[in-house]
């Protein structure tokens, strides 16, 4: 069964993506200049899970509080859209686009799919080594 969004969580994260990261998902969906709707965000996150090449579990560190979050499952697709669910994979926690330390760029400008995957794996390794995520269990692809 595919994961689902809690309505309030969906609204909250959709707002983040369209304000703080405004233009990013719109670019991925090719709908710029208009803003992405909640439904489009919801569908795009479901696609990230369905088309994921990489999947792993771990406890990510919340930068603001310095505490580690509960264990979650991470899915990443070839556009480097990352969807995070609870461990039962039934509820979405969040969904975002990986930028590799920069402002948003079109995935294609990062290079081939292969380059994106290698970069993502490398960055996951850095995160793990640096304690940004712990208790990582690799399921596939990464």
């Amino acid at each position, binding site marked *: 069964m595919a994961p689902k969004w809690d309505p309030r969580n969906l609204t909250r994260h959709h707002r983040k993506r369209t304000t*703080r990261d405004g233009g990013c998902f719109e670019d991925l969906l090719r709908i710029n200049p208009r803003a992405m709707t909640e439904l489009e965000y919801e569908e795009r996150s479901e696609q990230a899970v369905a088309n994921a090449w990489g999947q792993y579990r771990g406890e990510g560190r919340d*930068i*603001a509080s*310095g505490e580690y979050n509960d264990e979650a499952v991470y899915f990443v697709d070839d556009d480097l859209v990352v969807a995070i669910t609870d461990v039962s994979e039934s509820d979405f926690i969040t969904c975002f686009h990986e*930028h*590799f*330390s*920069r*402002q948003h760029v079109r995935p294609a400008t990062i*290079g*081939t*799919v*292969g*380059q994106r*995957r*290698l970069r993502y794996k*490398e*960055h996951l390794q*850095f*995160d*793990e*080594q*640096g*304690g*940004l995520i712990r208790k990582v269990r690799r399921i596939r692809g990464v």
Partner: protein
Amino acid sequence: MRTLREGAKQVQQLHKDLHPPTMSRRPWKDNVFARHSLGDDVEVELWYLAEHFLLAWHDWHTLQGRFIQYFGEPEQPLPTSWRRLDGECKVLANRLLRDTNLDELVSASWEQTGFMDREFIHRAGSKLALREVYQNIVQNHRRWSLLHGEWSTGPAPATEGAEQAGPLGETWPRCRDLAFRLNQETFATCQVLMEAVGRDLLFHLRCYRHANLLMSWLSNNGIVEDRHPAAMEGSGDGHGDGQGEDGIGGGRGDGLREFVRMPPHQSALIRFSEGLVISTSSISGTVDGYFREGIAKRVLHRVMEAIAEIGYDNFVADVTDADFQGGPESLVGSSDVNVIPNPHRGPCHELLVAVSKGDKKGIGFPNVMRLVREHLIRCSVTQRVIVLCDHWGPNMLDEHIGDLRAHHARVDGPVRFLFLLVGTPARFLSPVAVDLGATP
């Protein structure tokens, strides 16, 4: 060892994917299938595969050396297949690093990705951009280490395909220059961000350094001879309040070390996180009056230094690991020391180091002290005992005090005990007041 095994597997896959197109002189801009690294139907730019291979191989190659120093020479030597793989990778790396076309492509990529996006950091807020800052520091450290490592400098020996090498077979000159600039820029940016994210950033850098065994006392930790012209001039932006006893650091009131000069021959990651290292004067000040000479002093110094850098939990985990053998560059600073608990008993030495955590299970203080007492009976040559613990109470030694006093009062060579308690944060130790010669 698991990290080394995973590294070997990754490097082998990359080598298998990269070697054939390199030998057949495919253009670096071509896309190739990296079947072993990515699967059957995923293409990647050949130049990017080459860059990725070089960094991954260099990480693994240098980690092996540090692993042997940190944990000690293993009982079973590292697999011969690794030696073979390493040799093959080094040949390939030498070829790649002297290819001017590849140098051009990779330097263009680094130019795009190597500098921190200050506008992004400012917009996101320093704290939220912490991950990006950390990743940038790490990536630039790897690039710097690859190009300023001792093995990669100088002209290559004459090999097939030498016509693709640079004019003097020099290691990627563009990337070398760029790595140097990125290094300087990274350090400068870190100093600007220090107030906003310093504490968190240092935590993550400390974790990274431990994961990669980048300890301050180990060779090949990012401090190398640098032949870059600016480095040879010894540029620096000196800060601090004077020369320390080692001629590098000055003392600060909190016991941390600052660099008086900005040594150009270090990566920004190492330079920026040197604040984790406690000064030699601070260590001496803490334990002055205790073991003053010889191996005991050296071991004590190393133990405190190690815990300051990696934290007590990591120290205990590593020193009790099945891979831990001891040695002059290890966590205990000597081969002539017994460690409890540790699966390798080894011959008896005059010095014993015992580590404990909590008061339950095999590693709890009560059980560790029982092991210490058994060891003292078995190894009558023991003269010095250092016991580390993470908690203390007035009755901690009740069960053991009789035996400890007897060993302390031995006429044929009294045993001296030093109990060290972990502080807050768990990177500092201080002596516990235990006088076995005093009457209750």
